[in-house]
Structures are given as structure tokens and as C-alpha cells.
């Protein structure tokens, strides 16, 4: 019993930190859905494209990690703008399913381009946070998880500040609540959309960097995995609720880590989806949300 409690606690700590990562991914999906009222299924691919592109300066000039990080963010933003242009800009209101399909098409294009260029082989990523776990008392804590914790707290704080203390944030929230009213009041909905894409794509760059660092490589499977987790977190927390995404991410992280330790990887996903199902039955709006779909 003693070891179970100890192990459970260690997995809880790791799960909470990793949950911050999930919260970031879900948060990106949520922000975009909140403002645009549409799902960007190409978000996972945007993250992956940034992660791969970050390696280009490393291969060409043996650039340091900071350059990799910045490149990841820059390329993610560019790809995000491309997604906005190709998949969202020309679709008018009333065509709800079309963006679903265009972003699926974009997902295919980005993923297959990366597979084509790399033959589906993962590419090595550096380990800027060291490659040995830190001993925190009796527990082993991963340094890159600590970094994720710090960076996500910074990101969430920045986003909260942006949303509630700046004019742009007010415009974003206005467009999220009532786009027509916002337009009448002089808010350029298109500009808000584009800038939202820039914001979420910058987040995507950060996410991609950490995803690749924690696995040790950029891999073509990243996009599908991130999309899946992101959507689950977004739904768990409540569509359109950014605090909900944070809560959902943490919950998913803890659930997965505990499930793998006590039940094994075979049952982790079944358990996660079953619990998701149950939560949706009990609280159809997610943990914190109440927005209709």
C-alpha cells in the first residue's frame, strides 16, 4: 500500500506537469474556436510543421537551441496564416462543415509534405533541459516537464492579461460573444480572426518545441496525436472556455499517468475515452463550459 501511494503521488506530480502541456494544446484549439466558432483540424499539423522547421537552422548552421525555438514559433505563425488564408478566409457564414473539410485537407497536405520530405523518419531534437531527471526529495522529476510547467504558466498568464487587459483582448472577446454586434461597433472581425490565428500559431510553436524536446525527436505522428488530445481536452473542459481547457488538460494528464501506472498502456486510452463519455453524459457542456456547440 505504501508503494502504491508513493507511486501514485509520483505519477500525480508528473501528470499535473504534463497536463499543463495538454492544457496548452487544448487552449490553442479553444481560443480559435472561441473567436472563430470553427474548428481548426489543421492545428496539430501547424504545431508539427513548426517543430520540424525549427531544425532547419540546426542542420544548416548548427544553430543554438534558442534559434530553434524562435524558428519554430515563426514558422508556426506562417503556417497558421496559410491555414487561415486557405481554409477559413473565403468560407462564408452558414457553411459549418466546410471548414472541417478544408482543414482536414490542409492536415493531409502538411502531413504528407513532411512525410514526403523526410520519408517518415523522425528527426533528432536537442535536449536543452538536460537529459537526467532531477531528484526532488524521493521523487524523480523531469526537467523538461518543469520547463513546460513554467512556460505554460507564463503563457496562460500572458493570454489572460491579453484577453482582459488589452484592447485587442476586448475585441477578441467581443467577436467571440457577438460577431455582428462587434462589427457594428467598429471591430474589424477579419483582423481579429487573423490576429487570433497569429496568437494561437505562436502558441503552436511553443507546443511543438516542447512536444519534440520531450520525445527527443520531431515525428510525423505528432499531428494526429496532438489533434486528438487537443480536441479531447477542449471538449472535457467545455467548448470555448479557456479556463476549462486548463482544467481539462490537467485532468487528462493526471488520468493518463495514473492509468498507465496502475492498469498498463492497454487500458489507458479505453479508460480515458470511457471517462470522457461519462463526463459528457453527466455534464453535456464539459466540466466548465455551457456554450452550445
Amino acid at each position: 500500500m505504501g508503494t502504491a501511494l508513493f507511486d501514485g503521488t509520483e505519477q500525480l506530480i508528473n501528470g499535473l506537469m504534463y497536463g499543463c502541456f495538454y492544457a496548452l494544446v487544448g487552449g490553442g484549439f479553444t481560443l480559435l474556436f472561441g473567436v472563430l466558432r470553427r474548428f481548426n483540424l489543421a492545428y496539430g499539423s501547424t504545431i508539427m510543421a513548426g517543430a520540424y522547421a525549427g531544425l532547419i537552422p540546426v542542420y544548416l548552421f548548427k544553430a543554438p537551441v534558442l534559434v530553434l525555438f524562435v524558428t519554430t514559433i515563426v514558422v508556426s505563425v506562417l503556417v497558421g496564416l496559410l491555414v487561415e488564408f486557405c481554409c477559413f478566409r473565403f468560407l462564408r457564414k452558414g457553411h459549418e462543415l466546410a471548414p472541417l473539410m478544408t482543414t482536414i485537407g490542409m492536415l493531409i497536405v502538411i502531413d504528407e509534405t513532411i512525410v514526403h520530405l523526410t520519408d517518415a523518419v523522425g528527426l533528432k531534437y536537442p535536449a536543452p533541459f538536460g537529459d537526467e531527471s532531477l531528484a526532488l526529495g524521493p521523487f524523480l522529476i523531469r526537467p523538461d516537464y518543469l520547463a513546460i510547467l513554467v512556460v505554460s504558466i507564463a503563457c496562460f498568464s500572458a493570454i489572460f492579461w491579453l484577453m482582459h487587459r488589452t484592447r485587442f483582448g476586448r475585441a477578441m472577446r467581443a467577436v467571440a460573444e457577438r460577431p455582428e454586434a462587434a462589427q457594428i461597433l467598429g471591430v474589424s472581425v477579419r483582423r481579429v480572426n487573423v490576429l487570433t490565428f497569429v496568437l494561437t500559431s505562436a502558441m503552436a510553436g511553443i507546443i511543438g518545441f516542447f512536444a519534440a524536446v520531450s520525445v527527443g525527436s520531431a515525428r510525423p505522428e505528432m499531428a494526429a496525436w496532438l489533434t486528438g488530445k487537443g480536441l479531447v481536452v477542449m471538449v472535457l473542459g467545455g467548448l470555448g472556455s479557456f479556463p476549462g481547457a486548463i482544467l481539462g488538460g490537467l485532468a487528462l494528464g493526471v488520468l493518463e499517468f495514473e492509468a498507465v501506472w496502475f492498469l498498463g498502456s492497454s487500458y489507458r486510452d479505453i479508460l480515458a475515452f470511457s471517462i470522457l463519455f461519462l463526463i459528457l453524459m453527466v455534464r453535456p457542456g464539459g466540466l466548465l463550459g455551457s456554450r452550445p456547440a
Partner: protein
Amino acid sequence: MRRPFVFAAATLLAACLLWPGWVGAFQSEGTVRIGGMWPLSGPAAFFGKAAYGLASLAVDEINEAGGLVVEGKRVKLALHAQDEACNAEQGLAVVKRLATVDKVIFSLGPGCSSVAEPVFGTLQKKLGDASDSGLQLLFFTDIATKFGLAKLSPWVFRNTPDEPAMYDFVVKYLKEKHPDLKTVMVSYESDFAHSAATWNLAVKPALERHKHHQIVEVVDWRWLDNEFGAQVTRLRKANADVYFSLTHTPSTCPSMLELKRQRVKPKMVIGITSLAGTEVLQQCPDVAAGIIAPSNFAPITPRAKQVADKAWERYKADSNIHSVPAYENVHLMKGLIEKAAIKNTEDTLLADRRKLRDQLAKVGTFQGVVGKITMRPEDDPVKPRDVDKDMILVQIKAAKWDVFWAPEHLKRN
């Protein structure tokens, strides 16, 4: 609806679909057509493209040396490659294309076992059985290693690694050369049949048979997982001498990284056969350093080195345990086609395939790139139409695969 656009699109679609292989066909145009279905796109593209390159190299060498002699005439080989994209539906369509549109006499591949299963499963099950509507196309497989595939049809022959024998040798080697290493921990991928089968049907029986090692921990994960903390923590607590990491590159790299993080240092790490290629060297050469894998190929003989260099130079194709058989198969089949006395016309295609199949069934022992290969006969109780090959143990050292152990008769060459 923009009608001209639709019309143009429809015409383009139809044209692409009806495009036949405009390569010379059969005796009348001096060609023998052979085929290959590999994953040339998608998650297994690395392996598929490598095999395609090695097969193309063999075809080049044969044609540059004058081709082959059929019905007294010198003819060339033409390789028709199709992409199965590791997808069953595409594989089922593509095999029909190779058989009836490209009209090949035999085919290499498939690369993915999830394609090989439905493709082989829908071949004719009994030779000459008119009541069986399965396809009659000869396969000489280079990559797909899943257990029991060759048993699915008498039209399937494979030149693929014999993992139970290889791991039996590994366990025996450990017992004799490192008797002090007694405890064993294992990891495998529960959703990847090749990995799970390597544990259940090759390594576990070998450990039980040699009665020297004690299995202290077995963990599993999904081959595309991103997080291995829990499983590696279990391995850390087990702290065994030998670690069998029976996992493919996508999960080997992050899990070995996690072992490093948690300071888990087994005295020996044995990998899965498929690891022996450049994929792992690109993804994590440092954390994978020291892993030993059983293989059938390493550039340890002059000929092997020459093949590896030429394949890279001409086709950027990696020579590894899965791709080199494609090269070996093409060279073998060249001789067998000549021996089979085929007529090489469209009307005799099925009869020619049958003749070639029968030749392959009784080929016995033939020369591979590294050593000799023996094709087991059709009535073999264990693995009919599969091969026995020389094996080597290779190890990752300084971001390259080095030879850890090789049989004496190979080293002498």
C-alpha cells in the same frame, strides 16, 4: 456548377486511371516484367523506398550485364513498382493492378504486414484448384516479417528474418559468453503485431528453453506513444542485467531517452531486428548507443559493402535487414526465370508464373549478399517457403552500426 472545369477534371481522372504501363511488354518487345508493391508513401516509406532502391539496383546490374536469356533471345527486366501506402484497401487494388494491368510474372513486397495479410489471404490457396477464386500471382517477399504469412498461400515465398532462430541464438550467446548476466527485463509494443510476436513467439520461448535467465519485469506500450515514464520506472525498479527492448524506432528512441533520464543502465540492451538500419541512427544515435540487434545484413564482406555503397549512390537507398533481400530476390529470380523456360507471352502469363513458382519451391540453397540462404520446402512443418539465413549481431557504436559478432565463415571472406 462550372461545367468546363468538371468536364476537364473528369477527363483527367479517367485518363490517369486508364494509364497502362507504357513499358515494353513480353517477348515481343524484349522485356520480362517483374513487380514490387511497397509502402512508398506514408509511415513506412523509409523501408519501402529502401527496398525499391535495392531492387532497382539489382535490375540495373542484370540489364547492364546483358539482361537474361528467354526462348533463346536476350531480354531485359522491367521493374513495376506500386505504392501500397501501408493501407489494406490500396494494397488489394494495387495487387490486381500488378497482376492484370502491369502483368508481372512475380512481385516483391509487400512491405507492411497489414497489407500482406489481406493480399496473401486472397491468393489461391491450393495450386490448380479451379474452385478457388483467389488470385494467382507469385510473391517473393522481402520485407513483411509477420509470423505465418508464407503459410497463407503456396504462391507466397519469403526471404525474411527468422526471428525465433535469431533470438534463440542471442539467448544462447548470452548464456555462454556472459553467464554472469542472469536477470532479464523486456519491453514490447502491445499494438504492433511484429513486436508482440517477437516477444511471445521468439524471445520468451528462447529464454524458457535455455533456462539460464530470470524474467523480472515485462512492460508494454503503444508503438506511437509519447510518454514512457511509468514503464521505465518499473524497469528502473527491476534493474535487470539484460534489457530486451523489442520495440521499433519510434518508441525505442523516446523510451531509451527516458531510461537515460532515470539513470537506468542495464549491462546489455538487445533490440528488435528491424532496428538494424539507419532510421534509428537518424533519430537517436546517442541514447541508442550500445544496443545490439540481430541482423542478416552488415557491410562485412566486400560484396556487401559494394552493394550498400552502390545502392546509396544511385538510389539513396539504405541497405538494411529488410531492404537487401529485395536485391537478393531479384538476382535469384533472374536465374530461375531462365531455368523455368517461360514463354514470356501474354497468353502464357499464368502458366509462366506457375513454372517460376515451381522453380522457386525447389531452389534449395542459394547465395545471398552476406552468406548462403536456404529456402525451406513446401512440406516443412514449421515454416514452409521461408528461409534460413546466416545471422550477425550488430551494435550501435559512434552513430553507426558495427559488427558485434559474426560467424567465422563470413569473416573469412
